[in-house]
């Protein structure tokens, strides 16, 4: 049936029409008599996973999609119209690379959707890909100078792994070597904070900013925060005299103000708000307001370069969130499979005393066990309560005001740079990317 040339006049079906209707390709036009006195003319649109039994989804001529149950007594005829697919953009996929000498920004893409195109006939949403198409979609990106788009991955951020941090870092270094003024990395927001922290430890001697950016609201809606975030990120990459890894996202609900967060301090603190990203334990490094970039005193300036990647990592590490009832058996099982373990403990950095035994065992085996606080604000401190002192005696390394996720990425990096527990512990506690802050201001805010 599918693909067969069908005459314009009726071809009434008498048997159960569902098997044929179910298999019709998207875009096929049909007239359906539902056998209950109503007829519908519409275009078959993409089925989505939630559709019920025997429900045919049609787009009517008024633009609405409706689900119609196809009973065995229903009849249909195909209308003369070819199936319509979501069209691929035919435009040129390559263009001339920016001429040397021009101040250009590299935009690394990692997947997810940086932009989407909607096909109003079928309701299909197709990601915008490729340099030419992305720039055609966001003409304002090149307002201040050329942008070169470098696709790195095509994956959702929850599917990225520590090895991908290294790959990204290599591309960043490559872009700076070719003369980029700054680098923007478009990234899914779910694990954007991890990648930002990891790159902070991996990248050294940056001659310009490395700016991670994402979108909290999908790009298939006119209100997506993606375009304005991306524009602010490109502006920071082009203009800010920054030599570190930062995240640029909405500062509040408005599309006009953006915060510049240090890669090791930033955390996604809300599942859906545009201003989900917050700097914890330290101030924002700066902001973008009405297309003007302002940097605060803590921002680390650009170096003379050249940028390089301080590479090897070892991802035999784990992050363990303690909770009342966490089984020491489960925790121990994890410790058997890793070289380093970061605990997000309660309060000042505590875990139930029933866990002391496996911790002693693990550190004796050479596993680095580090402590952070699941409060996500303030420091871990072993000296206030006996529990903390016992944990230090058991060999646990306290990581002061590092966020658990930042501590985990630093662990992955440190494990690649040292073999003994003591050496790993020393790397963990040594400041490297501005990740520790000695003075937590009494007054909140920048």
């Amino acid at each position, binding site marked *: 049936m599918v693909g067969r040339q069908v005459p314009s006049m009726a071809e009434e079906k008498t048997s159960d029409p569902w098997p044929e209707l179910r298999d019709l390709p998207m875009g096929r036009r049909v007239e359906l008599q539902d056998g*209950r*006195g*109503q007829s*519908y003319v519409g275009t078959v*649109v993409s089925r*989505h996973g*939630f*559709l*019920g039994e025997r*429900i045919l*989804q049609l787009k*009517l001529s*008024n*633009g*609405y*999609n*409706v*689900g*119609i*149950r196809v009973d065995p007594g229903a009849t249909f005829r195909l209308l003369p119209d070819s199936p319509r697919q*979501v*069209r691929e953009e035919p435009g040129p996929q390559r263009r001339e690379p920016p001429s040397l000498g021009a101040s250009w920004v590299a935009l690394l893409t990692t997947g997810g959707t940086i932009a989407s*195109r*909607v*096909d*109003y*006939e079928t*309701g299909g*949403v197709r990601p915008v890909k490729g340099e030419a198409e992305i720039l055609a979609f966001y003409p304002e990106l090149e307002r201040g100078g050329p942008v070169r788009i470098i696709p790195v991955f095509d994956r959702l951020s929850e599917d990225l792994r520590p090895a991908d941090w290294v790959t990204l870092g290599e591309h960043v270094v490559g872009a700076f070597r070719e003369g980029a003024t700054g680098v923007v990395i478009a990234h899914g927001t779910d694990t954007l904070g991890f990648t930002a922290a990891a790159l902070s430890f991996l990248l050294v001697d940056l001659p310009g900013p490395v700016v991670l950016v994402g979108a*909290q*609201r999908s790009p*298939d*809606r*006119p*209100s*997506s925060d993606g*375009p*304005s975030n991306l524009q602010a990120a490109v502006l920071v990459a082009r203009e800010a005299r920054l030599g570190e890894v930062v995240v640029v996202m909405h500062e*509040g*609900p*408005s*599309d*006009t103000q953006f915060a510049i967060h240090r890669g090791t301090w930033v955390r996604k603190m809300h599942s*859906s*708000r*545009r201003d989900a990203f917050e700097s914890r334990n330290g101030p924002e490094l700066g902001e973008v307001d009405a297309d003007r970039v302002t940097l605060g005193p803590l921002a680390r300036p650009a170096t003379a370069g050249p940028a390089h990647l301080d590479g090897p990592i070892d991802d035999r590490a784990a992050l363990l969130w303690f909770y009342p009832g966490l089984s020491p058996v489960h925790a121990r099982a994890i410790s058997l499979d890793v070289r380093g373990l970061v605990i997000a403990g309660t309060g000042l950095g505590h875990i139930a005393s029933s866990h002391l035994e496996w911790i002693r065992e693990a550190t004796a085996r050479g596993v680095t066990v580090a402590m952070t606080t699941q409060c996500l604000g303030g420091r871990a401190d072993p000296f206030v309560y006996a529990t903390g002192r016992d944990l230090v005696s058991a060999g646990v390394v306290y990581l002061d005001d590092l966020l658990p996720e930042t501590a985990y990425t630093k662990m992955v990096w440190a494990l690649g740079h040292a073999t003994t527990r003591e050496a790993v512990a020393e790397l963990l506690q040594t400041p490297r990317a501005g990740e520790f802050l000695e003075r937590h201001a009494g007054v909140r805010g920048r």
Partner: protein
Amino acid sequence: MKAGLEIHQQLATGKLFCACPAELSEDVAVSFGRRLRAAEGEDRAVDAAASLQAARGLLYRYEVVPSSCLVEMDDEPPHPLNADALETALLVALLLEARPVDEVEVMRKIVVDGSTTSGFQRTALVATGGHIDVRGRTHRIETVCLEEDAARRIGESPDGVTYRLDRLGISLIEIATAPDITSGVEAREVAEEIGALLRATGRVRRGIGTIREDVNVSTEGGRRTEIKGVQELRKIQEYVEREVGRQRVLLSLRDELLRRGASVPSGSQREMTDLFREVRSGPLSEVRRSGAVVLVLPLLGFAGLLKSPPGTEERLGRELAAQARAVGLGGILHSDELPGHGVSEAVVRKLRQALGVGDADAFVLVVGPSREPAEAAVERVAARARAALEGVPEETRDPLPDGSTRYSRPLPGRDRMYPETDVPPIPVSGERLDMLRRDLPEHPSARRERIIRQYTLPLEVVRQLEGLEDVEEFEALVQRGHAPGAVARLLTQDAPAAMAQTPEARPFSLDILDMVLAAAESGKFAKEGIPAVLGALAAGATSVEAAIGRAGLSSGPVEDLDAVVDRIVRANAKLVHERGEAALSPLMGDVMREVRGRRDGKEVADSLRRSIARLRAETATPPP
């Protein structure tokens, strides 16, 4: 002519995709600014209506009220579709005998004027088909949809528009009729009938702004125009009739223009700023002070056709001016109103000479703060003048309070919709529909028949009660033991009259009306006093007793009516002697002055009749 309606009724079920109450608020907590990116169509074709708004790159400000949440801020995905709202829409569909779909699919309809924070309006088609019958004629229903209301427009500035989030997301039912309406009266009656049907569900919001109509009107030879956002049902008739009139004027103008061979040559506008440097009054006086630019557009063969034809208020000049306003200018001046507005006859002569136009031709002056907006306005004015050669252009028009309409924007193209993937589709099972059918509210037409029969009220009184949305109140008061006629009179005449005197007063509660009726029935005052008591209540009396007092009826019933009547009859013995029975009528007035509101007129008449008879009997009998 033919017309179709789109009725949008707010539901009292809470918002469609979040848990916020459907309440308006004047309490603004904070505000934020957003930009919308016009999502371009796959075919790159830009919708005419969308481009006019999106091309301007506006910053929209949104005022957040305490009752709004992250869903309205587009900072949280929508919650599942409000089940009560869907049930109400299904009830309405069943009342209309429309056919519900088997699975409701929520769509995103692209709207880039900033009136939604998402850039689209969520909408779902719930049923198709159905009908509503008015005075024996059937009007087909095309669709019954459920959609979210837009944010409330608060104000605008050159670089943006301010909206408030309180209205955004309120559940709306949209009912679209086929273009089966053939007159303005019918348009109003169909709207009223649909309104009554919506209220029959008992789940709609009441009050101004809770129901809005879009009216599509076309006349023979003309094209469709849409009057968008009529808030008062009773005005629909006027809007339709005036629109039909406007279209007829435009059509006859077209005939005249074609007969004259009129034309608007392209690129024929000329800058003539210097001619107006000496103008000292009127809209052109700004030329002297600022860098304003005056462009003049000749309209060949248009002379005398820009002002109103005799006997109508419609004029082409007004339609041309609206085009200049659409790009932000104040309007235009045209040759049919010149000399005048500070422009002398000498200047007009020079103008005609410079343009090379004769007395049969017209021209339009456009004043802009600089060349660019003036050019943009002239282009639009020229396009509109050319459209006059074809008759009625398709467009959306805003209703104005005086019953006329004003150009607002081109008619939007086909809605651009795609699925709202954040909301799963909702199945509508046969069992669910059967359950709703078993408990369907009474159809307004059935209820009308029943009320006429059950309470022996005339049809027009029932229609009045319906128009006032007082049928439920009527039945409730009758159930409390009051006479149907008295209740109907109270609701259709006395209460509206009292409210009209004090427009700011709150509507009477059912309990108050009950107490007023009970007080009259128990003789605390006579039923003639009801309007006065209601008036006192509307004016602020805090109880029925207080209102009786304020109305001057507080002395209670006249203890001895006969004594009062006898006194007055005897004081007028001469009149009685001369006119006999016929004295009743003038004396009635005297007595009523003393006892009005406390005694019933019929009672007074009876007493008078007796007293007159007594007096006449006495005087007729000679003293012994």
